[in-house]
């Protein structure tokens, strides 16, 4: 098992190399640069700034320099925020995105899981229709509609929670709900499908025939099989949810790293773009690995060698 994990982690290196290289050159193909602004800089001032960040060097040398820095774990200076490095911005922002993401994930798994199981067990009953209608709503209502709506209701009409910002648990409620709802809805549908598939199989009938209580049948025998599709989905979804959401973080003014993904690309903040890409890629690879390992425990048909 350990050997398998090590082998997979070693496999990350070429993948990351390809991702970094592609992103590096694609970023440079985009028109405009990090220091273009409405007010054009005098030619010399622009050159001075570019020299400061080594942007005046040939592209291949910049590329090698960047690869060397990344290998040492240094993601470079931020062009947009000259007082800070990309590492520092990610270090400050990630715990925030993580906290928000965990809350949202908890909401998603608990709400989605329960709704999905109930719907699967009571197929075509009222409970099924109700939870699947809610799930459909959750998937269809975009978070840039849900967020402001929740804000309007729970911060302005009923002054229970703050509109936006960060600092206490009260700031966490509305954004977690906004972010979690979509995933909850998705998980509910996946769980329901999983339950339906498993519940009709022979080993469930065997378990029932042996006289086990229904709760034990569902929880101990049906559930591990039913959540396999959810798990597959949850791996990459966790990476996405934990690195923050551009929309939710912007709407609720949350100091996470989600907003850097889009803002840095629009600002041509090269180092920040690459930094977020590297960071997200590493997380994505890690979560996929975790999912694969969990599979081995949950599904007896899968064996890790």
């Amino acid at each position, binding site marked *: 098992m350990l050997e398998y994990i090590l082998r997979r982690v070693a496999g990350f290196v070429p993948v990351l190399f390809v991702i970094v290289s592609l992103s590096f050159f694609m970023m440079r193909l985009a028109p405009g640069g990090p220091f273009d602004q409405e*007010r054009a800089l005098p030619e*010399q001032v622009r050159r001075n700034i570019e*020299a400061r960040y080594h942007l005046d060097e040939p592209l291949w040398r910049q590329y090698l320099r960047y690869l060397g820095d990344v290998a040492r774990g240094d993601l470079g200076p931020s062009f947009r925020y000259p007082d800070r490095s990309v590492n520092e911005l990610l270090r400050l922002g990630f715990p925030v995105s993580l906290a928000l993401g965990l809350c949202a994930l908890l909401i998603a798994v608990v709400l989605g899981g329960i709704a999905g199981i109930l719907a699967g067990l009571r197929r075509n009953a009222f409970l099924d229709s109700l939870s699947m209608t809610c799930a459909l709503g959750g998937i269809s209502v975009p978070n840039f509609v849900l967020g402001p709506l929740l804000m309007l209701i729970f911060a*302005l009409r009923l002054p229970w929670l703050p509109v936006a910002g960060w600092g206490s648990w009260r700031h966490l409620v509305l954004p977690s709900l906004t972010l979690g709802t979509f995933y909850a809805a998705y998980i509910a549908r996946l769980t329901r499908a999983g339950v339906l598939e498993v519940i009709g199989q022979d080993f469930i009938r065997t378990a029932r025939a042996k006289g086990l209580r229904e709760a034990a049948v569902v929880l101990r025998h049906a559930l591990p099989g039913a959540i396999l599709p959810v798990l597959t989905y949850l791996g990459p979804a966790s990476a996405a949810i934990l690195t923050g959401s551009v929309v939710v973080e912007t709407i609720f003014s949350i100091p996470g790293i989600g907003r850097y993904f889009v803002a840095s690309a629009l600002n041509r903040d090269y180092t920040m773009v690459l930094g977020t890409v590297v960071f997200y890629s590493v997380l994505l690879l890690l979560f996929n690995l975790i999912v694969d390992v969990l599979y081995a425990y949950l599904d007896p048909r899968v064996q890790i060698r």
Partner: protein
Amino acid sequence: MRARGAIVPTVLALALSASALPAPAAEKQVFRINNMVEPESLDPGLVTGVPEHRIVSNVFEGLTTTDPKDLSPRPGMAVSWTVSQDGSVYTFRLRDARWTDGKPVTAHDFVYAWERVLNPKTGARYAQQLFALKNGEEYNRGRRADFSQVGVKALDDRTLRVTLRCPTAYFLDLTSFSTLSPVPRWAIQAHGKDWVKPGKIVSNGPFRLANWVPQQELILEKNPAHWDAARVKLRKVVFLPTEDVHTAFKQFLAGESDWVPQVPISQIDAGRGRPEFYVTPYLGTYFFRFNVTRPPTNDVRVRKALSMAVDREALTKYVTRAGEIPTSTFVPAGIRGYAGVRGLPYDPAAAKKLLAEAGYPDGRGLPRMELLYNTNELHRLVTQAVQQMWKERLGIRVELVNVEWKVYLARQSSLDYQISRAGWIGDYVDPNTFLNMWVSGGGNNQTGWSNRHYDELIAQAACRIVNPRERMRALQEAERILVADEVPLMPLFTYVNKGLLARQVKGWYPNLLDQHPLKYISLER
């Protein structure tokens, strides 16, 4: 134990309420500003933007400060100054002021700060703010390596002599700018780029940095050691970086901020009904550039026709709607001593005639034209309205091209466009900040337009004319060439500041640059 526990809070509460009774609002004095974006930096030598200036200008103080009402220069670190007869040598006498670490603020701190901004290695974006200094530009270009030849010298600890390239009428408007603030050499050398962070920063303004969590909040507190501390009423100022303008609006409504300097277009009607809503003129012009190197806009008659066919009154009344001021000139009204000129009138009939004279009667035979704009709700609405007006009044079809910000900038500066929407905000209250950008080959010209007489007038006004009246007349003549004769651009309207300000805020005055020094602000019932 239990009894004592009950008594202590009661006593405390009594004590607190007794002291709080006379001035309940004054006791708090916490002002919360929605700054709309995370400041890029707090380093006075590096910052360029309005949101950064809103913070940094209160943390660092330059030679002069600005009057909160009319923005005229007031004493800052300099207690007084003299100007040589020809207007090119300024001698500043510094006051006995201290940095937050107790060291005295000296003339050497200014020399260090200005060298740092002009030093090519610093890569300061606003280095040009010091190009008025003798040899300032040469030093920044690396053409002169010896800083002692640049026009700034500390005669002693309290005397700073500044020698300008030539008399610069608005130099005292620049000395209050963050770029020209003094900075502490020892702190920068000790901490590198971390020197502006909480716990490390050393500053000299009426407020000092108490805390800064990126993207969350930045807190300033009163600097009790500042020379003018007796005037400062605010105890604490909180800057929120909420970027979403709709969220910022809701935060104000929920009482989470006291000032929000922007209002979403869709909420203007809702905002207008509130006593906190304000609209004031801004030193900025919204306009379209014409590419004069490409047909058909290389023909001045076509440019004039396009400009004269646009009903700016209707545009501001029905499209922008916040009270923007329609204009046919480039320099906004309201600059002291500048009378302004007359631009082209709104006259669709004359516009049609001009178009016919250019060889395109009723727009027939006119090559396909594109109007470039960057992604933004306001720009979309404005360009659509103008497109419609051109179609109705002149019978021509113009295609709208929407690109993202950086692509827009790149295409505009490489003249890869036909017509392009643009905006320009003045740096200081003088027509020069609007007119010198249009000189031949100027980095912000970006139209390909060039006119020798115009260049000559701008050069005269910049250096050779000392008499203020004559200088303004030269600038006026230049603007006439720009907006009435040659028309490489068509002005549409003067920007306004629109926002919401809580009613208990006092000492906040509307002005052309939307600058509101915090030391004059207080909160009252």
